[in-house]
């Protein structure tokens, strides 16, 4: 992964950008199917992603092609996986979060309103800041959508899914509209039912030790990741606010310094520059923490939820299987509808076993992926922090020399 230089311009789709894709997942991309997001456009309310595919598979008409997709279409794809019974035994790659530029847009608006009350330099500086922030959010959302697609492409079964192929290839609008109010309400109730059911299902003790252990582990892990994710967000926010304050101090000092050209004012200008530099470093440290730590935690929050969902589905299947067994026994005892009970039982048994088999592998893969991703990110985080701290040391040394030098 490329290291960012101290004076990073906003180079949007440089090599640096490829990095985030591999950050959270350790993927083997093979030549048979490679998916990435080669471009993205941010319009008023939506973001348009250009999904680019390279494939040697015979299912596709061409070897390389691109389509434009929006966020809702990604969600549609994800939901189609979730609803597909055949995939009940897999950890469905978590859906990318909705692109959220509201906070950034609000800030830009406030800045526009407050334009009259600050000097031209201050205004330009703040505007640049906000634009950089906007760009950072933009890059992140692209990365997250890309990760989703790559996970699907890397999964041996999901990559063959027909909907996925349509998603990649069909170059017209998929006419997938977002859920309307009624559907959202239905979803809400479904979720309530599901979580209630989940509690019941989780209560059933599993025969298989492996799954029993996984259940308890995942529950605990998920909660702790959630907590860590929230706290890391808060920490990074304070860090960014402190950097913003330093920015304002630097600009006010600059204004003071430009009032005239006495020694005093020159001094202020120097100090203003110093603050400006320390701010850049602080902001960068915060941004790196955000990328390496916060995003990692957020991603695994979603993945662990997906793993929990898998366990839930298996648990549900187990309960269904046990119920079918009991029904079969009853039917045999009463000697009524035995055939029907037998077929139901067979179906349940098959479903359960199919899920169990793939679930075991999926969960083991999840563990491996998780460990690898954490390792990668933690190592990169440490390296970046070291780099910044050393850079900061140098900067401080030079500033001290300058300040002490002139008496």
């Amino acid at each position: 992964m490329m290291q960012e230089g101290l004076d990073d311009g906003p180079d949007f789709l440089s090599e640096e950008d490829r990095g985030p894709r591999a950050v959270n997942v350790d993927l083997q991309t093979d030549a048979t199917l490679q998916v990435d997001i080669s471009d993205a456009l941010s319009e008023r309310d939506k973001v348009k992603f250009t999904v680019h595919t390279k494939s040697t598979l015979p299912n596709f008409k061409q070897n390389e092609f691109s389509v434009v997709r929006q966020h809702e279409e990604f969600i549609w794809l994800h939901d189609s996986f979730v609803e597909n019974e055949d995939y009940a035994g897999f950890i469905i790659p978590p859906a990318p979060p909705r692109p959220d530029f509201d906070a950034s847009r609000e800030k830009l608006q406030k800045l526009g309103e407050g334009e009259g009350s600050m000097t031209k330099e201050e205004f330009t500086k703040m505007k640049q800041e906000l634009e950089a922030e906007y760009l950072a959010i933009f890059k992140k959302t692209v990365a997250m959508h890309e990760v989703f697609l790559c996970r699907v492409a890397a999964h041996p079964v999901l990559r063959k899914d027909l909907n996925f192929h349509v998603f990649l290839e069909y170059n017209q609008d998929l006419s997938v509209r977002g859920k309307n109010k009624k559907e959202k309400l239905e979803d809400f109730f479904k979720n309530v039912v599901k979580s209630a059911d989940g509690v019941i299902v989780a209560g059933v003790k599993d025969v298989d030790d492996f799954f029993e252990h996984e259940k308890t582990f995942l529950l605990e892990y998920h909660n702790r990741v959630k907590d860590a994710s929230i706290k890391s967000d808060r920490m990074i926010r304070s860090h960014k606010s402190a950097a913003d304050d330093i920015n304002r101090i630097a600009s006010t000092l600059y204004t003071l310094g430009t009032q005239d050209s006495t020694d005093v004012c020159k001094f202020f200008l120097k100090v203003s520059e110093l603050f400006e530099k320390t701010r850049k470093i602080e902001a960068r440290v915060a941004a790196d923490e955000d990328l390496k730590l916060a995003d990692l935690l957020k991603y695994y929050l979603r993945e662990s939820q997906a793993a929990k969902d898998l366990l839930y589905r298996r648990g549900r299947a187990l309960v269904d299987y046990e119920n079918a067994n009991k029904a079969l026994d009853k039917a045999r005892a009463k000697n009524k509808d035995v055939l029907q009970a037998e077929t139901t039982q067979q179906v349940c048994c098959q479903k359960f076993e199919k899920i169990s088999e793939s679930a075991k592998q999926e969960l083991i893969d999840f563990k491996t992926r998780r460990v690898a991703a954490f390792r990668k990110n933690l190592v990169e985080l440490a390296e970046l922090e070291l780099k910044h701290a050393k850079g900061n040391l140098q900067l401080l040394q030079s500033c001290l020399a300058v300040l002490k030098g002139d008496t």
Partner: protein
Amino acid sequence: MLNLLVIVMHTHLQNKPFTPTPPETDPPTDIFSEEGYTVQTPIKHPSLHTNILEPKFNGIQSDEELDLFAGKHIQPTNHTNSGALLEEEEHGDTFELNIAVTNPEKMGDGMNAFMTYKVSTQTSLPAFRSKTFSVRRRFSDFLGLYEKLLVKQSLMGCIIPPPPQKSVVGMTKVKVGKEDPSSADFVEKRRAALERYLQRVVVHPALLQDPDVQEFLEKEELPRAVNTQALSGSGFLKMINKASDAVNKMTIKMNESDNWFESKLQEVENEEQLLRRLHASFDSLVNHRKELCSSTAMFAKSVAMLGSSEENSALSRALSQLAEVEDKLEQLQQEQAFSDFFIFTELLADYVRLLGAVRGCFEQRVKAWQRWQEAQSTLQKKREAEAKLLWANKPDKLQQAKDDITEWEAKVGQSERDFERISSTLRKEVHRFEVRPETSNLLHKEKCRDFRHHIVKYLESLHRTQHRLVKCWETFLPEAKAIV
């Protein structure tokens, strides 16, 4: 035991041209002396013989005195003996006065509780009964002093240093008896601010002579100043007065005969605005740093929890190591938060208020001019009335009219003289304000040296922090790499 972060108001000792001593060097300002130490700030006072509004200074210092301060300006004191002041030597016509505000003590209970502070004075001025003395004063006493001075001296055009702000929230916490660091902080900030306030008051030659000031320093028991209650009637009255001032400004526009006043006022207003903004940013920075500290601590705990539930042992170890690193980071940031221009926020707030006081003086001058104009127009009306009476031939009322005219002629003369006096006083005051380093604005060169000193200190502490950060991350890195 309160954690005393003593803040020193660094005053410059001015050099008189004929002094044979070498130009003085900066005694290092020690902002963050350790707990239990008090630093004294000597204030050289100009001679009382000279015209009190004379902006020249007679501060003479000798080498010995300088050494006294330079070498041992930190004196360990115990809390009871807070008034330990250095012996001052009398030099010809210099009079000295040292003031310290220490020993905050809580008296009373619950919502009626209040803090008292010990105000210690050491002086060689003959106006006072003894050379060293101390009294206990509470916050409302300080405010009361300000009110009295404002009423009297502002008519003269003097710039009265403003006291620290009232803070209902801060005081309520203290009253309720919460023994948390924020209320200790608040008391300490207030104590330091009160000390700076008094030091500024006594450095002003006219104010030092004021009997109210002397009474404040000396008298055992002061009558409780009632006008200063937060929501008292007089507070409301003040607000109304301020409002009417604003209206007045709009109706009678003063035709400024002297451009100096106009341009000075503009300068003052600009600076006030900039400093206000700077203060707000510094304040915000200090707060965000504190926030960062607490959120880092919480994050560290959270990561530790995560690490403990992680199955892979190497990752688990690495995560708990990360938690430790973050924890150390938090401690480092904690120290940072204190040095992060804690004092500047305070000093900046002082300067902003001082500039407000200066602006107030300009407004007083405008009011004086208005009074003069009004007196003139009333005189005019009286004269017209007399003329009418003469014409209407009513001799009985004529005498009254003549008396009125005489009265108003006197008033016009008086208000004109008042205006002139205020104008000239104001000029001198502003000049004094700009030149004297204790009261001067931030753009004063001497103050800059202070500022630079603090910045250097800040940078050095930042440097140390970064160093330790490097070590932390260096120990973490191999752990992270060892994850399998």
